[in-house]
């Protein structure tokens, strides 16, 4: 972290003006302009604000509750009701990407030299232009001093390279944390990668919902646009759904046990929960909703009004259930979770010998109503085990991996950009009368103040290499 890069390398700054500019190069200039970047970021931010204030993808009825019809029409035509997928919004994103590519490309020409051109040796003028340099005279021959300097630099900075080696002059060059220069390209690249991932998802992926009752299977899904998509060669069976609640009434867990079937064969059985989806052949199933499809079993208390005896009977939906010790039987015909605001109710068809068949409703929460019905038996509902259906969201998005790769590249880019600083040190040894002239120069990409400290330390250590070297040896010997 620290100050920004030196103002020498500025993309977006007008490049040297040529006499005549072609249409393409001036177009390139406007596309590489940082003004465009700033304008696009502002426009995208403001547009996004509209997108959060105006409800997106709601039904016309909902909109007409908020807006006048004319306002609704205008918003619809301008694409504000599904703004993030509207042409002009996508165009802005595409323009931002193009701007990013052109800016990065132009900037790369400057950064390139740190990587591919030999930046190590330098002319006197370049030397003087560096922000930090020192000179001092050291006794002894350059050839004797050199190994000590190499050792000191390796120890407190990093291993130097010997870039010039003439008879009486040497130039050492050492550099650290070079990736700091290219972090910004990683970040820009990552934005493109993420957008590409999103495009892959929107063209090759789909998203839909399917409700499956317990014991049933589905082999296709209906998408949001009404289209039907078959699962490739398999079907999904819901073995069981369960829901549990905390004592506060808040939901604790929604769980569907799914079996993947291929040609009638069970492939695998796995539970899915919220936050634990199941992926099979690129299609992912998410626990999304649930509901009651009917009743699996009901426990009924059957009281004989003549004898006063009461028995509990578990009855399956749709099956004929006999009352033991009599020739009566009944059938659970239908279940409604809420009949006329009076709660759950079962429709029962009852058959007694020598009486016409009865067809009536029994309410779970209103057992007293049974008293008004004539007949030998009085029925009350003791318990109902609902048969659930589970609402699954079915998603295919082959772009997700690309998006995550983009996110990782972005984070790596941030690390390089904000937590690294390309630091370079040059040391030149020139033999003179009476000793060797040592010149040190340094530059850093960021954090100038931090580097000044480091440079001072290096300068100090080189001036007294022998002492620092020996102290270090002694310390090493003691420990």
């Amino acid at each position, binding site marked *: 972290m620290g100050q920004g890069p030196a103002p020498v390398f500025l993309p977006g700054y007008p490049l040297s003006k040529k006499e005549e500019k072609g249409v393409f190069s001036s177009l390139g200039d406007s596309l590489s302009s940082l003004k465009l970047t*700033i304008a696009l970021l502002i426009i995208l931010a403001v547009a996004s604000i509209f997108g959060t204030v105006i409800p997106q993808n709601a039904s016309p009825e909902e909109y007409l509750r908020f807006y006048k019809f004319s306002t609704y029409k205008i918003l619809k035509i301008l694409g504000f009701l599904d703004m993030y997928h509207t042409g002009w919004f996508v165009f802005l994103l595409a323009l931002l990407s193009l701007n990013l590519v052109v800016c990065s490309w132009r900037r790369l020409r400057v950064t390139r030299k740190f990587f591919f051109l030999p930046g190590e040796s330098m002319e006197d003028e370049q030397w003087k232009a560096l922000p930090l340099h020192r000179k001092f005279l050291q006794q002894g021959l350059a050839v004797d001093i050199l190994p000590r300097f190499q050792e000191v630099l390796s120890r407190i900075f990093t291993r130097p390279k010997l870039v010039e080696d003439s008879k009486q002059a040497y130039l050492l060059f050492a550099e650290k944390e070079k990736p700091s220069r290219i972090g910004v390209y990683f970040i820009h690249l990552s934005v493109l990668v993420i957008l590409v991932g999103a495009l892959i998802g929107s063209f090759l992926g789909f998203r839909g919902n399917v409700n499956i009752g317990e014991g049933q299977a589905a082999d296709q899904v209906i998408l949001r646009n009404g289209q039907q998509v078959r699962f490739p060669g398999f079907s999904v069976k819901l073995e069981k759904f369960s829901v549990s609640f905390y004592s506060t009434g808040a939901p604790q867990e929604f769980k569907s046990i799914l079996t993947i079937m291929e040609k009638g064969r069970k492939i695998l059985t796995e539970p899915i929960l919220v936050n634990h989806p199941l992926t099979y052949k690129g299609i992912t199933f998410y626990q999304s909703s649930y509901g009651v499809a009917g009743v699996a079993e009901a426990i009924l208390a059957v009281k004989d009004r003549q004898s006063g005896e009461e028995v509990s009977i578990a009855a399956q939906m749709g099956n004929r259930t006999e009352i033991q010790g009599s020739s009566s039987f009944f059938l659970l015909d239908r279940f409604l979770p809420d009949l006329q605001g009076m709660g759950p109710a079962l429709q029962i068809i009852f058959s007694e010998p020598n009486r016409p068949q009865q067809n009536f409703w029994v309410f779970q929460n209103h057992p007293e109503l049974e008293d008004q019905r004539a007949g030998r038996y009085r029925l009350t509902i003791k318990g109902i085990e609902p048969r659930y259906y589970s609402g699954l969201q079915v998603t295919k998005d082959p772009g997700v991996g690309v998006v995550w790769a983009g996110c990782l590249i972005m984070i790596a880019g941030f690390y390089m950009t904000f937590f690294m600083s390309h630091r370079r040190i040059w040391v030149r040894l020139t033999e003179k009368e009476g000793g060797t002239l040592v010149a040190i120069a340094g530059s850093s990409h960021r954090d100038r103040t931090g580097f000044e400290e480091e440079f001072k330390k290096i300068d100090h250590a080189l001036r007294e290499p022998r002492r620092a070297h020996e102290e270090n040896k002694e310390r090493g010997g003691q420990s």
Partner: protein
Amino acid sequence: MISTKMFSSVTFLYLACTVLYINFLAFRSERLGKIATGLSWITLLIHTAAILWRWVESYQLGMGHAPLSNMYESLVFFSWCIALLYLLWEKKMKARIIGAFAMPFAFLFIAYASLAPGVSDRIDPLIPALQSNWLHAHVITCFLSYASFALSCAVSVMYLIKIKKKEQGGKETGWISLFPPLDSLDALVYKTIAMGFPLLTIGIVTGAAWANYAWGSYWSWDPKETWSLITWFVYALFLHARLVREWRGKRTALLSVIGFAAVIFTYFGVNYILSGLHSYT
């Protein structure tokens, strides 16, 4: 609950810290400054203990989850992040002048947690959507970034006050003379954002990863997501303007304040103003 009582006393302690830092600024008394710093560290310690204790309490209630799961807990954690980042900065820089501008943020957010009528201090069990390890990574990175942006905003306000005084041509007198030089303030505005921006990015990415597990979509232009992206755009703008266009001083300080306003809207505004139209479940 004991932790709730601890948080109430921590609220008053942060108020005391704020008053001390302001007095330190007003009377320029080194002793007051030292007391302010000491009390702030003690407050942060109690604050930390209270968060840990709330965690223990959630286990005692049979739920057992980190105290990062609702508005109350997030406000308490936000305040903790601000106090921690500020105090670490103060220790590193050996300058406590920003305390008078940073501590009020720590105080305000925890006070809002205790006093706002809509914010319940109950420990609730986690609903299925929140039962994810992404919750921790997401909440921690988001609030550390928000806290960096809060500090940046505090420093920007100092910068704007100082430059206004300077532009009025007056000599720097009184408490403004204690402010760090404009250049240092400007550099600090940048450094805090250079820390907050990557954290915000990780916060958004972990949120997207979580959404992908829970709802099957890493991005759905939900208002909360969109506002976090708007915030990201504002700070991206700040960094480009500063690093490439060499914007300095007033303009970047203003951008930092706008950015923090976007943070606040992402955090509160979306819940309170836009929730009538959209819900975040």
